[in-house]
């Protein structure tokens, strides 16, 4: 995490996002990576508001499945957004669903997440949810 007042470059945001995604697959989520008023909108969990709730949800998601793996295909960033194209593999009830996930993240200048959208194609999501 950058010091207060330090503006991160897009490349620094990309590296932070990569580490965060890898950590999330293991259920490791750093609360300092999120602004206090962070909001997450996701296909799997609906809308969640506030740092503590978002962190708790991100820690919970991998525990909902026998396997939950997010493999970043590409991560792009500019001054306003970080976008991660992710190959998602979820195993539940002995069956595996593979899907492409897109994460769109708004960050503040310190690289903390203020808003996060995690989108999975609805047909794949239905397969995941019915397991």
């Amino acid at each position, binding site marked *: 995490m950058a010091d207060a007042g330090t503006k991160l470059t897009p490349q620094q945001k990309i590296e932070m996002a990569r580490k965060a995604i890898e950590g999330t697959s293991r259920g490791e989520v750093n609360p300092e990576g999120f602004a206090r008023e962070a909001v997450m909108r996701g296909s799997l969990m609906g809308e969640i508001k506030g740092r503590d709730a978002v962190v708790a949800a991100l820690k919970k998601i991998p525990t909902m499945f026998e396997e939950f793996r997010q493999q970043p295909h*590409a991560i*792009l*960033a*500019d001054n*306003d*957004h970080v*976008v991660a*194209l992710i190959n998602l593999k979820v195993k539940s009830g002995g069956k595996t669903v593979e899907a*492409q996930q*897109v994460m*769109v993240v708004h960050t503040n200048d310190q690289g903390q997440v203020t808003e996060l*959208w995690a*989108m999975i*194609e*609805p*047909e794949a999501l239905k397969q995941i949810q019915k397991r």
Partner: protein
Amino acid sequence: MAEAGTKLSLDQKVQTIRDGFEAFKRGDLKRVAELFTEDAVWHGRGSTKFGGDFKGKEALMGNMAQFAQTFQDIRLDIHDILANDKHVVALVNSSVKRDGKTYADQQTFVFHVTDQGKTTETWVVSDTEQLKKSLES
């Protein structure tokens, strides 16, 4: 469009995609077609007629034309476009009308764009369930 041998910068690639959306919005499908390679592939999602892979410029432009004929008041407001060496990603707030109903969505378009500014592959991430519903009405 860059001349053969000229490598587009990331900003130029972003502008090329922005130009494509603007051309679609004004109904200039001829200009849109110019932005794809002949063997370009469009990966649509979902189980509607707009889902699946459309291989070749003719097929993908046919799909796009059919979309334009199926819906009214198609709005594609670009929220942001990002690029790296391999991808251009457009975040788009969209809405369409059909039979008097409006369907709004937040869509992500992922493009592979050559160094000369031609798109070779496109993936669309959208609410395909809503799309299905809009076609059933």
